[in-house]
């Protein structure tokens, strides 16, 4: 083998270089895998389809809006073919009709100078207001704090994107960790590079993939909104979205460390499920909190500071205009500190348990053991 002996063995790579090499492998192996490509494509198409369909729905010709009118002001809405007019006797009857949902709004006699007023449940019905010859005063019977539908949709989206991409990539990290352990290639790898490089590269590579995937989702969403002429939504979510990316990146590293350390405790792929439970719960908590408490300011305030929920909580509060300018900065500092502490801990657990075969290693044991294994 004269050709191979001509290369003298070089120096071992530095920690940083080794980490990058591991990260590169993680990225290429994942980006090339069929399941990853297919699931990403399906996700992107679904998002695009959702945006296009909602765009088409909003551009559709509006149907007639049922409206109750007190007889004395019936003239003010006559001649509008967008309204389906029901005459009622007085304001009480009109209000009754609105509350029961028989009509979307009611036109009732109002004070000077217009002489008419519009009653509605939670939002001024555009069709009614537009149909009136004069701009009337609108009285809401049950006002919502913000646009309820959009509020729910955006908070839901932040929570969902974070949860699905962390669980997706986290499981990938966990699976790779256990596969390496099960196939014992980890022994060969660790005879070449330190455990920290292996863990660091894994987190770095998968974070890059997850961020790239999220960026692709964002790009498709923006593209879809612009193409379908709904780009006004962008001005609403632009700033919170930028913060979301920052929080996402760091929060992802935090959870990725936990996924890798958890997975290193077991030796067989079949055991991964149970050992990942705590990590998966941690990832689902922010989602359920925003879904169930998205109008509870106290819960949102607390979750916007707790490291595990901040990546979703803070952008949501920013979107709802409930946070002062300095709050995301404080939350970010807390998150970074927590991430540094937890990844150091995770690295310790990983180093101690990744070579231990057989049964499940207890976390306490992994942390307490001296450099024995």
């Amino acid at each position, binding site marked *: 083998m004269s*050709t191979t002996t001509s290369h003298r063995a070089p120096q*071992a790579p530095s920690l940083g270089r080794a980490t990058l090499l591991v990260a590169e492998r993680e990225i290429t192996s994942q980006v090339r895998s069929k399941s990853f490509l297919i699931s990403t494509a399906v996700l992107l198409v679904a998002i695009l389809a959702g945006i296009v369909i909602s765009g088409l729905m909003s551009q559709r010709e509006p149907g007639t809006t049922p409206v109750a009118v007190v007889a004395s002001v019936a003239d003010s809405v006559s001649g509008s073919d967008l309204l389906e007019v029901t005459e009622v006797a007085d304001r009480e009857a009109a209000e009754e009709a609105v509350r029961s949902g028989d009509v979307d709004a009611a036109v009732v006699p109002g004070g000077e100078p217009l002489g008419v007023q519009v009653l509605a449940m939670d939002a001024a019905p555009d069709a009614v207001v537009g149909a009136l010859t004069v701009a009337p005063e609108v009285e809401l019977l049950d006002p919502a704090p913000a646009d309820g539908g959009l509020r729910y949709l955006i908070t839901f989206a932040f929570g969902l994107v974070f949860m699905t991409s962390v669980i997706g990539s986290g499981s990938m990290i966990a699976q790779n960790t256990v596969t*390496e352990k099960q196939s014992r290639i980890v022994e*060969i790898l660790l*005879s070449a590079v330190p455990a920290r490089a292996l863990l660091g590269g894994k987190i770095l590579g998968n974070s890059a993939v997850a961020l790239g995937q999220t960026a692709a989702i964002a790009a498709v969403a923006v593209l879809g909104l612009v193409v379908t002429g709904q780009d006004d939504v962008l001005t609403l979510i632009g700033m919170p979205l930028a913060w979301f990316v920052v929080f996402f990146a760091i929060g992802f590293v935090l959870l990725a460390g936990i996924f890798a350390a958890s997975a290193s405790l077991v030796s067989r792929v079949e055991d991964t499920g149970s050992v990942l439970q705590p990590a998966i719960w941690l990832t689902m908590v922010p989602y359920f909190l925003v879904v169930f408490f998205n109008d509870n300011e106290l819960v949102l305030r607390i979750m916007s500071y707790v490291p595990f929920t901040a990546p979703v909580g803070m952008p949501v509060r920013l979107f709802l205009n409930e946070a002062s300018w300095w709050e995301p900065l404080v939350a970010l500092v807390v998150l970074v500190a927590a991430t540094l502490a937890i990844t150091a801990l995770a690295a310790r657990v990983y180093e101690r348990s990744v070579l231990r075969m057989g049964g499940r290693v207890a976390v306490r044991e992994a942390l307490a053991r001296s450099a024995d294994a």
Partner: protein
Amino acid sequence: MLELQGVSRSFGDRRVLDDVSFTVGQGRLTGFVGGNGAGKTTTMRIILGVLAPHAGTVTLDGRPLDGARRARFGYMPEERGLYPKMKLAEQLTYLARLHGFDKGAAADRAHDLIDRLGLTERAGDPVESLSLGNQQRAQVAAALVHQPEVLVLDEPFSGLDPMAVEVVQSVLAERAAQGVPVLFSSHQLDVVERLCDDLVIIAGGRIRAAGSREELRRAHATERHEIVVAGDMGWLRDEPGARVDELAAGSAVFEADEATAQRVLREALARGPVQSFAPLRPSLAEIFREVITDEEPADAAGRTQELEAAR
């Protein structure tokens, strides 16, 4: 030279290595022989730093090993492991790069080894699609791809057909000829016997014998001789000082000291032509059996205490 001194290791209460000391010389192919659970794999994992010893040291050329020096070792673990879904050539290239080779040199080395080990057609296949024998060759390649300064191979020949054994054997011999200390374990004693220069025999976590193959053979040589003649050897029974082990028409195996053996040879020559006469060298299997006969069956639980009591 790779040297282990007084290496001990326990798992819980179970002592799996007890004061293990031996050396692997520069350019020597050293066979590491022992039964199941004797401590071979634990020893190798300690040499590689995958496991820490509870006592004792491992040194290379007199200096203790650290991570950087161990990174120049080539290791083939007991349980074969490569990324199942990664292509063979890519995988070997990746491993070489992890050891510091740049991309081009790493790829060259990977392909050279793949060709050398007869896997050329499989270079682009994922490892999981290779046959067991080919996976085994791939594993050998993974241990060699970074031009290691020391080779530690756990059962490199298990599961290989005779052709593949030849190939791997010649690759290892080549490395040894370049001055690399090579330690390999095996329980295929015939392969070890054919291939290795030195031998280390371990049983119950203790080194039972170590040295060059010839030395060991001499040390364990019995005074057995075999003689084949044209006529009949029946008269040997009455020869004083010679104990007959086997006797057939024209041949006999007997035990006798050197002087008696020579006398028997002269007597045989006087009676007719002698076709062959030679001292019987013990085979490795015989040495192995002899060395570990005083061992109870290989189950290590609580064995140390029993051994200590027996001593």
